[in-house]
């Protein structure tokens, strides 16, 4: 079954744009959560990741901070 993927991002952060592009390239469907408009989602992100930098990926409960391609692939089972 496909894993549920969420990405917490802001529209202006270059790593967020690249992370989303990376997911698209790998044909991964994901939910994009814009924390610049959804403040409670921002708080949720901080709580989950223990830090305040974007992007944060939630891949079926595994939290990855930043565009760590290797870890993302691993979490997605693409390796």
């Amino acid at each position, binding site marked *: 079954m496909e894993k549920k993927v969420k990405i917490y991002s*802001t529209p*202006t*952060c*270059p*790593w*967020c*744009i*690249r992370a989303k*592009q990376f997911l698209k390239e790998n044909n991964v469907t994901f939910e994009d959560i814009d*924390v*610049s*408009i959804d*403040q409670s989602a*921002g708080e949720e*992100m*901080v709580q989950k990741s*223990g*830090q*305040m*930098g*974007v992007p944060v990926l939630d891949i079926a409960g595994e939290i990855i*901070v930043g565009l760590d*391609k*290797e870890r993302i692939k691993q979490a997605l089972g693409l390796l």
Partner: protein
Amino acid sequence: MLDLIIIGAGPAGITATVYAARKRMELLVITGDIGGQAAWSGDIENYTGYQFISGPELVLKFEEHMRKYGSALRENEKVTNLEKIKEKIVVRTDKGVYEAKTAIIASGKRSRELNVLGEKEFKNKGISYCATCDGPLFSGKKVAIIGGGNSALDAALQLIKIAKQVYIINNSAELSGDAVMQEKLSQDSRVIVFNNAKVTAITGDKFVTGLRLEKADKEEELAVGGIFIEIGLVPNSEFATSLEKNQLKEIKVDRYNQTSVPGIFAAGDVSDVTEKQIIIAAGEGAKAALRAFRYLSRHNFISQDG
């Protein structure tokens, strides 16, 4: 042995790669990220051919252009040392050792750090170097911006839209950023500027809760939930220990992008080129690649039939 190693994949490194690949040089690009500072630029309105493009979009176009040639690329890799041993240029990274006949250093610049207690500990835990990226997470909070130049004022203008209060902590007598921005900020009562003030420590628990401020012989605590450090840039030139640099630690180059060691070239913001602009970095990258090619030809390293 490789013809060329290019260190960095910002505008200079990417353009050098395109030029070198078109000369059929056998090359390897080693870089931490793609795009460098250009990826962090907001709106770009002075790159010829684009009346308006965002930093990430321009970088995407650069990257596509580079990848078209299929040159070997190692991302997320940090160069730790570069030296010339006899006729070989040896590049050491956190992941391996590579050798080539020539090298182009295009490793750019990074945000300067404050070097105070708590800075490392609270990075991404209330400390940010990119107001554009992380700003929205500080909505409703009191924040401090360290710095007094254009990037600091730009961060202040972005944050004032969402933060409860914005402190600007500037270590000189007055702000140095553009008057237009200063005016806008002075009209907002939520902006408080501390001149001649120095941050001595960043404090917190899980996240930043405040900072210690030293001004005119007295120290005080300032409670903030976010700190944005905007105090300029430093060149990524530490690994090039054997090369001559200027006072700013930029690698010295002549007008052919040649460094103090023959066969090692530098281009873009890491070099002492007079202006730091995306288009200039790109042009310098092209010059460096063409020069590296000539260097190889002159030393009969390359057969001319390619």
